């Protein structure tokens, strides 16, 4: 028993406590979502009334386009996370495997560029995309493609680091022997390295997906058509100004639903994260 406590028990204890910490605000949101009065102060941790009115209102009110927002968010987030993972991984591969002049500076620059306060750059982004909209309406304001391009600007960032760190731990002997066997660098990249790093790809895909789902600052100035908005923008509109009180129940419902795709993506990617355990054992 003591042995179990020492080896496994403490783990459960830590996990349960953290899960409690993680869940309690969410339970609060859940109870607000189920409460037909749906206002913050009337919400208790334990729901006082249970009804799905808020969910129904959210999905049926004509001035909200929750379903559209949901689809928009999913499409943009999935597309952007896949594309940015690819771009980012290519760069991470180069940074980890190759030695070239400017490598160190490049890495540092990637880190630094992320540190400029974003809200100021909004005006500049507006300037750029006004022109893009004039020239290429398909990638302009109110289009998911334009937003996607914009998000890909951030593809080389923290995630590149994460992947580079992971790649550094994959032994170079693998690709070098393949080179000796006559494989091209592209073959090594796609056939050997890519499958090996599934866990970190899964983790970064998850991070990118969540990041895009929650992105608000840029999407708010970019998407103006009620139908083209993402969840973060649309739902923020439900909370600002004098509409907040009455919308809170619906907002809580929307927040919960918004977490569903993220959790779905996580559950789907989880097996890759776990499988990583065996992939890691490749190192010999």
């Amino acid at each position, binding site marked *: 028993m003591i042995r179990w406590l020492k080896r496994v028990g403490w783990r459960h204890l830590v996990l349960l406590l953290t899960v409690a910490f993680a869940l309690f605000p969410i339970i609060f949101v859940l109870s607000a979502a189920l409460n037909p009065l749906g206002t913050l102060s009337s919400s208790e941790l334990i729901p006082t009334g249970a009804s799905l009115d808020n969910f129904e209102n959210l999905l049926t009110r004509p001035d909200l386009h929750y379903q559209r927002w949901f689809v928009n968010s999913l499409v943009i987030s999935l597309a952007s996370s896949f594309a940015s993972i690819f771009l980012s991984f290519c760069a991470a591969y180069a940074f980890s495997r190759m030695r070239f002049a400017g490598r160190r500076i490049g890495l540092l620059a990637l880190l630094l560029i992320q540190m400029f306060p974003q809200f*100021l750059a909004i005006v500049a982004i507006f300037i750029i995309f006004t022109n893009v909209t004039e020239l290429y309406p398909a990638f302009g304001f109110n289009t998911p493609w334009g937003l996607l391009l914009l998000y890909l600007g951030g593809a*080389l960032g923290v995630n590149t680091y994460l992947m580079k760190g992971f790649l550094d731990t994959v032994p170079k002997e693998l690709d070098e022997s393949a080179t000796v066997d006559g494989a091209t660098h592209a073959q090594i990249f796609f056939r050997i390295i890519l499958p090996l790093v599934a866990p970190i790809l899964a983790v970064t895909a998850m991070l990118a997906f969540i990041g895009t789902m929650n992105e608000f600052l840029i999407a708010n100035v970019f998407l103006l058509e009620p139908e083209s908005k993402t969840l973060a923008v649309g739902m923020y509109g439900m909370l600002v100004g004098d509409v907040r009180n009455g919308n809170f129940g619906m907002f809580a419902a929307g927040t919960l639903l918004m977490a569903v795709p993220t959790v779905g993506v996580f559950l789907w990617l989880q097996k890759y*994260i776990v499988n990583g355990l065996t992939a890691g054992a490749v190192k010999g």
Partner: protein
Amino acid sequence: MTTQPSVTGSGSSGSPDPGLSPRSSQPRVITTGFLVGRVVVLGIVAALALYAVPPLIESESWLALGVVGVATLIVTYAYLSTRHVPAKYLIPGTIFLIAFQILPVLLTVSTAFTNFGDGHRGSKEDAITAIQTGSVTQVAGSPEYNLTIALRDGKLVFLLVNPTTKSVQAGTADGLSEVTGAELGITGKVLAAPGFEVLNGATAAERGKEISDLVVPTEGGAIKANGLSRAFEGKTSKRYRADCDCVTDAETGQKWVADADIGSFVDDNGQALAQGWQVNIGLANFTRVFTNNTISAHFLAVFVWNVVFALASVLTTFVLGMIVALALHSPRVRGKKTYRTFLVLPYAMPAFAMLLVWRDMFNTDFGLINRLLGTDIDWIGQPNTARFALILMNLWLGFPYMFLVTTGALQAIPKELVEASTVDGASPWQGFRRVTLPLLLVALTPLLISSFAFNFNNFNAIRLVTNGGPYAIDNASVGATDLLISYTYRVAGFDTGTADFGFAAAISVFIFAIVATISVVAFRRTRAQEEVYS
């Protein structure tokens, strides 16, 4: 994952020279895959170039066209050549990085040298137009005409009906002329007139631009369309005169002279017209950062809290995230999937929404926290509790991220290493301290630095929860939880609707310099570690 077994096989016969990069080792054989890859990449590049070019030609953006051409050539060269292998991997991401991150930042920084902001957004011409349009008033006693848009010999004409006398006049850029024989509808619009082609609403609307531009000169001023169905005779009291580079008011005789240093029209008393224009003001914004009393007086206090906030956020989230990841990192723990899903939930909820929820939970009288604890603490209203609350919220929001990346990084640590340390007789704690933690830190230090930078500028958390408050009673400018960024936001006037972008950009450059310095120093310290490990 299907290729894995063969990978394992080839991994055992590794070359012993780790300093050698793949491209330098062997002359490459041209394979089908190689060719197909080239064709696909170049096809995409060519297609994009073909898509990008026509609109640029149409709009005569020659410079942009040249740049697209050069960029295409460079990309083509990089992928056709068998050399420059790193470039092949870096180019795609770099293009986006330059276009949508670096370029906006450079444009923003360039505004730091201007007075760009509310009241000084556009060009001098814009300001003059705005001043003149803003001073248009209806000529006293003039009729409010009903307007019909018509064509005469293909040229746009206003058919103006005086609503009281029902007389009809035709207005063109040359002036007014009488129209006879016009047929009027009951709304007072002209239905038909000899010699004119009356335009209906839709056709008229299509010529909206021409209609707004048409000015019919009259004795007292000019007649302009007011929409599509009415016109009025107005006069401009303020006019720009090029000879004195000034604006004069015809009625009061007042005069405002252009001041190119501040981008405003100023009168003798130093009063400026509201509509100004954007001018280059050199380093004035930067010197203002130093001379601004509000900034210099509180900079140190804000800076210290800012560092504390960022450090505390990184440390608490990392420690909790890592502990949880370690707790799960054992084959003995059951229910891993369930745990993981629950642990990721805070991260899956939209952050801005949860910040608001947390703020409400900290409410003194209505908040869940006081109710559960049975306390009566004004959490957000007192400096130290507000700071604590912010760090706690940030912990909640951020630990799943650290949990995820630590989990990812833990996969990469070879079990053999940890096992080896156990064989050597080290306790699990020693094993963790000596093997796992250092390896984790190598992989995660850049992320920790970047998380530090993110939290250093974590504008949302402050803005949505405390907005910098609580404020000391004798200081309504700087609050106890203000970060440099939220403080910038306020000092530059974003809070109030009249923003001073130039000044904000200048402050941001300073903030950037501070964060960058801290990060570079931290980054350099990881260099030694990294080189050893890789």
